[in-house]
């Protein structure tokens, strides 16, 4: 039995926008997720003005203030060099968001276009995409990223390249299956019979129907990219010090466990905060668009 809410002809008068807003605003998870992400973006963008010790992102050493526990002047405490962890964490958010922008900014468009092509045209493009994604699935992404970024040089840029190399296949795989389904709908054949060319069909007929799936997937992916980037930098494949990076801050703090727990938990919790935001929003979008993610 299909969702009665969607089929009911009496809902016909409602605009699609209203129905989406209705579902969104009644979804606490989505609202909280949006608020979290807003706070993250504001903190990251205005970090130099919002943090108490913006200079602590550099190579400052203040041995008198080493390993201070959290208090009023250092909300998250200080690290082994006496630097304010809160300030460094906020700047670390910048790296995480940049990573998301870099990775998804490339892999989403590439994956979408290739997925659309494979789904609509079938044939060798279909075989290529599904073959490639099958191989990529078998490869632990973390291992692949480690191998690539280490064999090149362990930098953020290389980590980003490594993640991007993997990520587009996942995206392509999803869009491929969605667009293959849409391509078999009557309205696609009708458009072809009305004389539409392949570009029109791909980008005007199929793509708009993928927007919901793409936005849900991209939001959830953003969380994974952040997790992934943090894990890479935790293992020592991240940004070069002294630039603050959440994963490597956790790794640094780990040496001083369990005594100076805040050096691990505070930057770690920041990662959790961001990924939570993206996941909540992703869930909310899924409910809002009424799609399977």
């Amino acid at each position: 039995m299909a969702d009665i809410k969607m089929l009911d002809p009496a809902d016909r008068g409602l605009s699609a926008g209203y129905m989406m807003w209705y579902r969104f605003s009644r979804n606490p998870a989505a609202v909280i997720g949006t608020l979290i992400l807003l706070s993250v973006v504001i903190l990251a963008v205005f970090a130099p003005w919002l943090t108490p010790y913006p200079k602590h992102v550099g190579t400052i050493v203040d041995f008198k203030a080493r390993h201070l526990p959290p208090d009023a002047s250092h909300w998250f405490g200080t690290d082994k060099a006496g630097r304010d962890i809160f300030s460094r964490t906020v700047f670390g958010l910048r790296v995480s968001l940049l990573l998301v922008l870099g990775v998804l900014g490339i892999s989403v468009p590439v994956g979408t276009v290739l997925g659309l092509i494979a789904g609509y045209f079938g044939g060798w493009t279909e075989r290529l995409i599904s073959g490639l994604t099958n191989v990529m699935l078998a490869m632990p992404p973390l291992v692949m990223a480690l191998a690539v970024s280490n064999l090149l040089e362990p930098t953020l840029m290389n980590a980003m390249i490594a993640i991007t190399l993997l990520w587009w296949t996942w995206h392509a795989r999803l869009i491929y299956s969605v667009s293959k389904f849409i391509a078999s709908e009557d309205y696609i054949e009708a458009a072809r019979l009305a004389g539409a060319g392949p570009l029109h069909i791909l980008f005007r007929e199929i793509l708009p129907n993928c927007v919901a799936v793409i936005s849900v997937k991209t939001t959830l992916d953003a969380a994974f990219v952040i997790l992934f980037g943090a894990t890479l930098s935790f293992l020592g494949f991240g940004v070069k010090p002294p630039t603050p990076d959440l994963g490597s801050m956790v790794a640094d703090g780990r040496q001083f466990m369990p005594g100076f727990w805040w050096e691990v938990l505070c930057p770690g919790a920041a990662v959790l905060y961001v990924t939570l935001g993206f996941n909540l929003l992703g869930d909310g979008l899924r409910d809002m668009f009424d799609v399977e993610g």
Partner: protein
Amino acid sequence: MRQHPLTAILARLGSFLLVMVVLSLMIFTLARVVPGDPARMALGPAATPEQVQALRQQMGLDQPVAVQYLDYIGKALHGDLGISLVSQRPVTTDLAQTVPATVELVLVSVVFMFLVAIPLGVVTAHYRDHTLDHVGRILSLTGVTIPSFLFAITLQLLAARFPGGWPIIGRLEHGLGWQGGPTGFLLLDGLLAARFDVVGSALQHIALPAFALSMAGIGQITRITRSSMIENQRKDHVLTLQSFGVPERVIIFRYLLKLSSIAPLTIMGLEFASLIGNAFVIEMIFAWGGFASYGLNAILQKDLNAVTAVVLVAGLFFIVANLIVDVLISIIDPRMRRKEAL
């Protein structure tokens, strides 16, 4: 267009074989075209250019990549994966020592994952939008969002406060006089040798890393199970049984659970590579000494033969896991037994 079930399995095996070939080609090429001379790395900065050249020749690095690859595959089929540059031992020997530890860890994690996630998914679906559902959702959301290293370290922090102490690194307590067993699985070997002190200690040691490793999966499988249960609950066949007064618990635990276990199993197969990837982090934090630790080390040291072997073994893990998933699904779903190959 129905096919014989055997044909379907063979086709599936064939596609897996292809995956292995492409995977090996990729990693092999990657490892050899990137900058950094493995021979130089192996010998260290003190070596003379002649020594480096000699080692290059010995390793076949002066040959074209295609020749090197075919040579490698030929040997690999005979169980020779080359010599590890770092340990100076055959890679196969290293793998034989490290793989069982990882397999044991992964198996315990997967069992734990399903034991927790499936009931949690069923319960949250049944009590949809009630308190229990919200608690379950927060739990599964935490599983999906928390970085595995953070969770692992937090577990270690908590374990350190455990009265009487709880082991936070390694696989076994020292001083038990354990010489190792035939399979390399401590739990199994301990049982076979009736050494319950070993089993107990191994269980204690594996508990935390297995929990840490399963966390992401618990989150994901709970969600999938929940949404699959809810989706199937809306289907007509549930209405059929309800209309004839079949009790709710029978509908849920018999009819819906079986149907809704297909989706989490499929996801488990697809996400198996991520699980192996996470093992790299978990093994490092818990000093587990498994194949993932070995792999991480190999990558850091640019140990070519070891890296290639590690990637191939990881691929093999994935394939074996997916074959098992395929078999399980075809047992559950009669339609799969008749379906054409993928």
